[in-house]
């Protein structure tokens, strides 16, 4: 079973919840894995402290034009949705930084003048944490704008060995990398804060859950700091509020020192386990 932890708004506590949830589940489940899908700024390793043992490059395949064969017919430029290949006079130019690696130009070239060559986008790393969690993360190279292929390959790489419960820590927002981090999950756990900002982005994230047809529940973090509009919204939309974490300066101070929520406030361990049981029942029994 896969649970994606997402939020819409950044800084609501996705990684705080995701990492402590994974650790709390070690007692309940035989196999727990964790994917840090926030490949532009992965930081879950700070809390889970894995020892990385394996790594793999993430490449996309970009076109390489054989100028001997190319007749500059322009079919590749016509088919490319990203304008990554253009034909000017007798020259065919490739702009690797615009290429999404879809392969259409290679398929469509009537002269078979295009071959594909790998171009590195990022890195995948995996290893075990001291608690025995199988941890893996993606790392997008600095300056690369496309996170989706890295997340996609991270999921593929890990699904080969994953049978138990998997927690996927999503990036913030509701754009393509978030969609990729949710696609394939059985449940979407939305961490929010009870503020107009939290609500604004929660609405977008909840819409995403509806679009992707994935059951969702909400964790209200820093409960008590804002207003009750998040609660009203959840009631209207029939989204269960699974947990509330009151605003607590000690938690903030502990997180700032790199401590996990369940180490700062051990009582959350059983609360996270209870929340998981609720999620599991929703997913497996549809109740």
């Amino acid at each position, binding site marked *: 079973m896969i649970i994606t932890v997402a939020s819409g708004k950044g800084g609501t506590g996705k990684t705080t919840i995701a990492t402590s949830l994974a650790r709390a589940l070690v007692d309940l489940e035989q196999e727990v894995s964790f994917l840090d899908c926030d490949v532009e700024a992965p930081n879950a390793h700070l809390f889970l402290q894995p020892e990385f043992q394996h790594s793999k490059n993430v490449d996309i395949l970009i076109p390489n034009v054989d100028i001997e064969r190319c007749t500059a017919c322009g079919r590749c430029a016509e088919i490319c949705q990203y*304008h990554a290949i*253009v034909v000017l006079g007798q020259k065919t*130019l490739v*702009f690797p*930084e*615009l290429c999404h690696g879809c392969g259409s130009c290679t398929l469509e070239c009537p002269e078979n003048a295009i071959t594909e060559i790998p171009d590195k986008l990022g890195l995948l790393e995996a290893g075990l944490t001291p608690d025995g969690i199988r941890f893996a993360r993606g790392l997008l190279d600095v300056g*690369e*704008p496309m996170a989706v292929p890295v997340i996609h390959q991270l999921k593929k790489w890990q699904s080969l060995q994953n049978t138990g419960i998997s927690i996927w820590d999503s990036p913030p927002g509701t754009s393509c990398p978030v969609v990729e981090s949710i696609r394939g999950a059985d449940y979407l756990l939305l961490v929010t804060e009870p503020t107009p900002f939290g609500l604004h982005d929660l609405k977008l994230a909840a819409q995403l859950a509806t679009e992707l047809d994935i059951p969702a529940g909400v964790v209200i973090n820093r409960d008590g700091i804002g207003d009750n509009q998040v609660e009203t919204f959840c009631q209207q939309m029939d989204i269960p509020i699974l947990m509330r974490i009151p605003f607590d300066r000690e938690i903030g101070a502990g997180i700032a020192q790199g401590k996990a929520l369940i180490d700062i406030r051990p009582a959350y361990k059983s609360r996270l386990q209870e929340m998981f049981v609720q999620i599991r029942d929703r997913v497996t029994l549809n109740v």
Partner: protein
Amino acid sequence: MKIIITASSNTIEGPFNPRFGRADYFMLYDSDSQEWSAFQNPAAGASGGAGPQAVQFIAGKNPEIVISGRYGPSAFTALEAAGIKAYIANAGTVSDVLGQFLDGQLTQVGAATGPSMHGRGR
């Protein structure tokens, strides 16, 4: 000789547009016939890769010269490959800018003059 000037509207008395790939219109002046034609830029609203797409489009009009405000790296590479000379202007109407060019006040650029606007930024 054909000259293309990036513009915000399809008239020569309208403002020059300093953006190359996302200019609204390309105004083409043919110095032999002294006639103007206006072309809407199909790349103006592209989600990415507007520069190369714009070059591909104007290359089909066979200009020798293009005048804009700045050129990103991808656009410049494509202009070079197409053999189109790139000049820089600041402001004015399209006909002002043509006047500045014909008076020899504008300079040709030999490299990209603006940052990459999109893509993988390398």
